[in-house]
């Protein structure tokens, strides 16, 4: 349990660090270049990790549907947009608006897929998030 929470806590910080570092690179180059570098460096490191640990190609990836390979290209847009936004509206607003989008679309997906869960809790969560979004203050820039 403690280990799970530590892992989760670290994962959140790594996400924040990732946005901040890529945002800094985007400032001096461009957000798309930052996204490219992020993916290339990640690819090289994960290749090394795969070579060291092994098991990279042990699954049956050939059986996955073609669209499962679109996650990477979507990630490019994701990193580029967050690198573009973070120097403009700040880390807090970037983070909370992206979390909002993630939660709202997650609820929409759960409802569309008829996933079990309390509708009232979902609606209350959505209402709080929407209120939060509307309360974000615009930056004087």
């Amino acid at each position, binding site marked *: 349990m403690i280990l799970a*929470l530590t*892992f*989760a*806590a670290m*994962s959140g*910080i*790594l*996400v*924040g660090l990732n946005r901040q*570092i890529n945002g*800094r690179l985007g*400032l*001096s180059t461009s957000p798309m270049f930052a996204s490219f570098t*992020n993916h*290339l460096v*990640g*690819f090289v490191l*994960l*290749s090394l990790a*795969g070579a060291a640990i092994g098991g990279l*190609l042990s*699954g049956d990836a050939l059986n*996955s549907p073609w*669209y499962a*390979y679109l*996650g*990477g*290209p*979507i*990630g*490019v*847009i*994701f990193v580029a*947009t967050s690198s*573009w*936004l*973070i120097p*403009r*509206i700040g880390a*807090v607003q*970037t983070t909370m*608006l*992206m*979390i909002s*989008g*993630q*939660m*709202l679309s*997650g*609820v929409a997906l*759960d409802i569309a897929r008829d996933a079990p*869960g309390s509708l009232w*809790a*979902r609606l*209350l969560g959505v209402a*709080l*998030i929407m209120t*939060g*979004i509307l309360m*974000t203050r615009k930056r004087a820039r």
Partner: protein
Amino acid sequence: MHLLDVRQARVLHLAAAVGTGCLLTLMLLLNSELARHGGALFASWTAHGTGALVAIALLLLLATRSGAPGQSFRYSAAPAPWWAYLGGMTGAVNVMLSSTAVNIGLALTGTQAVALSTQMLFSLAADRWGLLGLPRQRLAWRDLWPVLLIVTGSAIIIFAGRDP
């Protein structure tokens, strides 16, 4: 930026951030589908590899369209410090971390809420002190209200809106 008035820029930023958050749901869905077949490491490795290829294609496309790729975005004259090129490292470490967590059976509902909270706390520190070379953002107490509402709303959805 100068072509847009403040209100238009505001709507653009909001839409971009919330819209990208929606894309994240789709991305995680696709990546977990790939991970279901090929494993977590394979899925992330593939996502980074295909992502790098698509990004370089987009960079070349932007370059042919407007001369220098994205240089209009630049507003820091200083060159990027060496560590700014290592953003991909945090992503790779995160993948290793989460696949380890899944392998030892730590996929709990609560972990997502904890990760969102530390992500939020990190962003507060990042803005407060201008961490890692990004501009400092002045934070007032009233800026914490939307944070509180969004974190609470997310926690309700994570804990009560889904059956485990």
